[in-house]
C-alpha cells in the first residue's frame, strides 16, 4: 500500500532509500519535518544514519561536506534564509566539488508564511553553477531525491533540491522502492580537489565552468523535464515545480490544450525551451517564487512582447501562486459565490498563555517608561511575537543573531539603553560571535538571553545552548559581576526589573539570562532540564 507522507517526509524517505549516511540540519519552517522524519525513522536509526541537529546551517553544511569527502552520501537541509548563513561553504563546495553524493535541500517560503523574506533559492543554485531539482508533487519529491544523489556522484557536484511551503506541508500517498546500501569510506582520487588555495582553486573553477555543458545535457535528457504537446499553439506554458499542478487543476478533463514545458531540473533545457518558443505565439511562465525562469527567457529591453508572467503583470509579482491566480492569468472567469464576510477579523499568532517571554516583555515595557530613549533589538524565535500588540516591546527584527550586533552598532552611535533580546538557540546559532565583538570593546549594551531550553518556534527541538549558556558567556569574556540569571515569572517582576535596570546602568557589556522552560515541553523534558540545572 502507498505511504501517506508530507512532501518533506517523502523527500526524507527518498534520502534514506538513496543510502545516505547522515543528514545535517538546523530547523526552520518549512524544512523542519525532513530531518525530524529521519530522526524518528526506525530504519534510519538501525542503519545509524546521523541525524542530530547542528548548531546552525553553516556548521551543518560543512559537516555534510566532510561526510562527502569521506566518500559517503550526505544531505544538508535548511529553510531559504538558512542558505544565507551557509552561503560561504555553499559557494566554495561548488568549486571543490564532492566525493560521496551531496544534496542541499532548501525549502523556500513564498508568501512568507513563517519567514522574514521570500528569497528564491534557485538564484543561489545558479550563482554557484550547480544543478537544481524542483519536485512538483510528493512522489516526485521522493523520486527526485534518489535521483539527486546519483546525479551528484555522476557529475561530481553538490545538487540543490528546492522545495516550497505548499509541497513541504502537503500529504499524498507515495510509492517507495528498495533502499540502496550506504557507500563505504573512500577518499577523493585527486588529493588537491578539496585544497582551495588559489593555485588549486583556479583549476577547480575552470573545471566547474567546463562541466556546465554536462549539466545542461543532463537537463535536456532529464525525466523531470517534460515537453508535453498540445493542439493549441496560441500559447505555450513553462511550468516549474508545484506550479504545474496549479496549472493542470484548471482543466476539467486533466488535459491542457496548450503545449507545456514542465520543469523539474535546471539549468533550463535550452533545446526544449527553444522548441516551445518556436512552436507557440506567446509564452506564459508559471513559477512559485521569483521570476527566475522568466528573467532568463524574456527580452532584456522588453521589446519582445512574447513572454508573460510575474514581470509583465499577468501574475502577482510577489507571494505564492495558487490555482486561482493561474486561472486568472489564463483568462478564465473565476466564480465563487462570496467574499469573506466583513464580520471576520484577523487572528494573528500569539505567545502561549504562561510563556516566559511574556514576563520578560512586561519587565522591558516597565523599564521603557524610565528611559524614553530605550531601544530594544530583537531576534528570531517565538519572542519575535513581542513586536505585536499587546507588548510591542521590540524595535527591530532582521536575521538570526542581529539583535546583539545591531545593539552594539546603535550603542556605538550613542543610543542608551541599547538592549538585545535573543533566544537561547539563536544565541548559539549566531549570537556568540557578536557578543565577542561587544566584549572586546566593552560596549555598553545589555544582552538578555531568553532561555526556554528549546528551539520553540519550530516545534520545541533540543537547543544546543541547554546547560551551556553561563560557561559560554564566561568563556567569551563577559564579566562575572555582570552575568545574571533571572526567572521570568510574574511574581518576580519587581525583582527582575531591578536586575535589568542595574545592568542597563552599567557602562559595559552585561548579560542577563532569563531562564524558564517553554510551557509546551513535555514533562519528561522539563524534568530532565531540572536535573541538568542541579549539576551546574
Amino acid at each position, binding site marked *: 500500500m502507498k505511504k501517506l507522507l508530507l512532501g518533506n517526509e517523502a523527500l526524507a524517505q527518498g534520502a534514506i532509500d538513496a543510502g545516505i549516511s547522515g543528514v545535517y540540519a538546523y530547523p526552520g519552517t518549512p524544512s523542519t519535518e525532513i530531518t525530524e522524519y529521519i530522526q524518528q525513522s526506525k530504519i534510519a536509526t538501525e542503519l545509524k544514519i546521523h541525524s542530530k541537529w547542528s548548531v546552525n546551517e553553516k556548521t551543518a553544511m560543512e559537516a555534510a561536506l566532510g561526510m562527502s569527502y569521506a566518500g559517503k552520501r550526505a544531505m544538508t537541509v535548511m529553510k531559504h534564509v538558512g542558505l544565507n548563513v551557509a552561503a560561504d561553504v555553499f559557494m566554495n563546495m561548488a568549486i571543490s566539488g564532492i566525493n560521496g553524493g551531496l544534496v542541499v535541500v532548501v525549502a523556500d517560503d513564498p508568501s512568507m508564511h513563517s519567514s522574514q523574506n521570500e528569497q528564491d533559492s534557485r538564484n543561489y543554485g545558479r550563482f554557484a553553477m550547480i544543478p537544481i531539482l524542483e519536485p512538483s508533487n510528493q512522489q516526485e519529491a521522493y523520486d527526485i531525491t534518489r535521483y539527486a544523489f546519483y546525479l551528484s556522484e555522476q557529475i561530481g557536484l553538490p545538487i540543490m533540491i528546492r522545495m516550497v511551503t505548499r509541497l513541504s506541508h502537503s500529504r499524498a500517498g507515495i510509492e517507495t522502492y528498495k533502499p540502496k546500501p550506504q557507500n563505504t569510506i573512500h577518499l577523493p582520487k585527486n588529493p588537491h580537489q578539496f585544497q582551495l588555495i588559489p593555485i588549486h582553486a583556479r583549476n577547480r573553477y575552470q573545471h566547474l565552468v567546463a562541466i556546465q555543458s554536462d549539466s545542461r545535457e543532463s537537463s535536456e535528457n532529464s525525466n523531470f523535464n517534460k515537453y508535453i504537446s498540445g493542439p493549441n499553439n496560441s500559447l505555450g506554458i513553462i511550468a516549474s515545480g508545484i506550479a504545474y499542478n496549479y496549472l493542470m*487543476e484548471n482543466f476539467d478533463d486533466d488535459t491542457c490544450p496548450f503545449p507545456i514545458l514542465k520543469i523539474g531540473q535546471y539549468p533550463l533545457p535550452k533545446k526544449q525551451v527553444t522548441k516551445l518558443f518556436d512552436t507557440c505565439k506567446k509564452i506564459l511562465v508559471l513559477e512559485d517564487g521569483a521570476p527566475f525562469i522568466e528573467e532568463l527567457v524574456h527580452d532584456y529591453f522588453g521589446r519582445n512582447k512574447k513572454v508573460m508572467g510575474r514581470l509583465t503583470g499577468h501574475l502577482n509579482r510577489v507571494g505564492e501562486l495558487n490555482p486561482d491566480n493561474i486561472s486568472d492569468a489564463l483568462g478564465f472567469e473565476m466564480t465563487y459565490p462570496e467574499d469573506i464576510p466583513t464580520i471576520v477579523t484577523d487572528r494573528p499568532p500569539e505567545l502561549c498563555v504562561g510563556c516566559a517571554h511574556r514576563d520578560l516583555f512586561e519587565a522591558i515595557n516597565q523599564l521603557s517608561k524610565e528611559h524614553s530613549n530605550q531601544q530594544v533589538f530583537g531576534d528570531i524565535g517565538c519572542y519575535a511575537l513581542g513586536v505585536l500588540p499587546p507588548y510591542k516591546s521590540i524595535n527591530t527584527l532582521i536575521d538570526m543573531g542581529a539583535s546583539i550586533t545591531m545593539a552594539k552598532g546603535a550603542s556605538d552611535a550613542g543610543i542608551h539603553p541599547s538592549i538585545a533580546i535573543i533566544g537561547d538557540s539563536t544565541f548559539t546559532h549566531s549570537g556568540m560571535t557578536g557578543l565577542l565583538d561587544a566584549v572586546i570593546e566593552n560596549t555598553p549594551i545589555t544582552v538578555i538571553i531568553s532561555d526556554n531550553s528549546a528551539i520553540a518556534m519550530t516545534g520545541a527541538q533540543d537547543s544546543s545552548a541547554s546547560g551551556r549558556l553561563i560557561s559560554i558567556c564566561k568563556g567569551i569574556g563577559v564579566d562575572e559581576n555582570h552575568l545574571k540569571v533571572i526567572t521570568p515569572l510574574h511574581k518576580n517582576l519587581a525583582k527582575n526589573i531591578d536586575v535589568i535596570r542595574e545592568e542597563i546602568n552599567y557602562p559595559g557589556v552585561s548579560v542577563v539570562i532569563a531562564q524558564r522552560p517553554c510551557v509546551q515541553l513535555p514533562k519528561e523534558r522539563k524534568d530532565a532540564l531540572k536535573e541538568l540545572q542541579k549539576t551546574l
Partner: protein
Amino acid sequence: MKTNIILAGVGGQGILTIAAILDTAALNGNLNIKQSEVHGMSQRGGAVQCHVRISDKEIFSDLIPLGKADLIISVEPMELLRYIPFLKEDGYLITDSNPFENIVNYPEVEKLKDVINSHPNSIIIDAKGTAKDLGNSKATNIVLLGAASALIPLNEAEIINAIKSLFERKGERIVNKNLKAFYKGKEIAAEIVS
C-alpha cells in the same frame, strides 16, 4: 468522484486529527488524497486551515481553488466564515458553536451565528458541549466529523476503522469514547437536517 473539504480552526485546536481520519479512510478505500496543512508561526494561536481532497482520479493541486469546496468543517464559528470564498454554491458548512476568543476584537457571537445561518446549507452544533457530556472534551473534533459524515462520500465502515486505528495506541476506552462521539455527532446533525 472528487470531494474537497476545508477544515478550519485556531492553531492548537487539533483539526489535523479530523484530516488524519479522512486520509486513512480514503487511502484504505483505494482513493487518491492530497492534504495541505499549515505548520509554523500560525500554529501559535493563529488562524489555521487544512485542505483535504479525495478523488478516484489523479489530484493535481494541493490547494482547493476558490468556489470549489464541497464542505467546510470548523471547530470555531468565526474561522468557518474566513473560508467562505472557497465554498461551492451548493456547498455545506458545519461548525462548532463555541467561540475561541483570544483576540480583543472578537465579534459578537450571535451576529456570527446570524451570518452562518443565512447560508442555506449550514449546521451549527455544540460539539464541545456534546463531547463534554460524553466525558471526553477532547473529542470535539470527532463529534464534528460525525456530524459531517453524511456529507462525505467515504464508506462509514472505513471511517470507523480509521478512528479505531488512530486511537488504538491510547487503549480501548479512548477508542470507544471517540466512536461514541462520532455516532452522537451523526445523530445530532441528522436531527437538525430532518
